[in-house]
């Protein structure tokens, strides 16, 4: 079983690093192969909104850089994890540049899903999704962050998903039980 971690830290971030270490430890103990990708170190151009990945090279982004790997790794994993500082209630620009380049994994065609129009799915199966944000502002943005991930779930339709926000002023020792609880929610650890 493969897990891919998309680490969206904008700079060295001890809290996000501690969460990533906890994820690697717990998943490793449970037999998962893990790849942690530090997005700020990767050359990923921003999505140009050209829809070439739908109408020119279906399923593959027309920009030939690490952004193509992002889509591939999502499809070929069983669990994807998004790590990000909560940024205005959403994701950092570093995480977002990867997510924007993942749209080739959907089809351009529309369908009604849960009462709203969404894009159809290109693949039969998608990985489970775990989203973790770090928040310095005492839960001020947690509601928006959770709502954003629920919107993403409507579009990516993972078989299981969970979202958590870790307060930056918490002791780093608490990252392990925090992460363990989330991994249980997506049923990847007992």
């Amino acid at each position, binding site marked *: 079983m493969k897990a891919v971690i998309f680490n969206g830290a904008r700079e060295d971030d001890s809290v996000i690093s501690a969460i990533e270490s906890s994820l690697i430890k717990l998943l490793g103990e449970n037999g998962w192969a893990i790849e942690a990708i530090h997005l700020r170190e990767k050359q990923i151009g921003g999505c140009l*909104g050209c829809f070439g990945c739908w109408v020119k090279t279906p399923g593959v982004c027309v920009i030939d850089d690490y952004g193509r790997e992002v889509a591939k790794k999502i499809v070929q994993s069983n669990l994807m994890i998004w790590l990000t500082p909560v940024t205005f209630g959403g*994701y950092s620009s570093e995480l*977002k540049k990867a997510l924007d380049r*993942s749209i080739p994994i959907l089809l351009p065609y529309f369908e009604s899903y849960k009462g*709203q129009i969404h894009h159809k799915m290109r693949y039969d199966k998608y990985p489970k999704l775990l989203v973790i944000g770090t928040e310095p502002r005492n839960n001020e943005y947690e509601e928006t962050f959770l709502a954003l991930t629920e*919107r993403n779930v409507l579009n990516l339709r993972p078989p299981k998903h969970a979202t958590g926000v870790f307060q930056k002023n918490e002791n780093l020792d608490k990252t392990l039980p925090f992460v363990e609880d989330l991994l249980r929610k997506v049923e990847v650890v007992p």
Partner: protein
Amino acid sequence: MNQPETVLLLNGSPKCEKSNSRQIGKFLVDRLEEKGLKSKEAFIVRLVKNSQGSEKLLRLVNTAGIIVFTTPLYVDSLPSFTIKAMEVIRDRRVAEPQVESPLLVAVINCGFPEKEHMEIALKIIKNFSEEANLRWGGAIIVGMGMALNGEPLSEKKGMTRNLTKGLSLAAVALAEGQPIPSEAEKLASKSFLPLFLEKTMLRAFGKRTWNNQAKANRAKPDMYARPYESLNETQY
């Protein structure tokens, strides 16, 4: 409240001049110009590539009376370039507090008919406005953006009548340094057509539109391709 003298059209769409974001924002800025404001236009994707561009972005933001911040919806939020610009603006305005707080007007558009798709993006921009010490000037959210086809709103006639009326009303308040009244926000954000009709049209004509584009690129036979699937078949 002082009357603003300048307006910045800050475009978060990577499609720049060809974007629907620009056409909606420009209609509002044109109305403000008619009321005597001087305008500037900037494209975020061209500015956040390097530190020189970021400095220019900061100068433009810090010297504007009104910022019309126009952006498409990308993956339930804003394009990565746009978030990058927001991080840069917030970081600098917190580090170096400014005397002036420009009025920030958000204009968000997406291809889906339902406005719910844009609610989170709107909250994110509001949070940015507060963190960057900008004054909230209101928001216009436009669904079925593809129907605009990157053309000026004035050329779209009846379909955009509520949008253009609402934007014109918004300009009256903004020119006085006031946020957009909620009636103008609601009017401008109304669907072009009844929602059930927009949804039906998008499903029916959307498929034809995508297929025609694919045909033109000789990609039609591959539309359902699954290029990354083969390695994953045994993992479930």
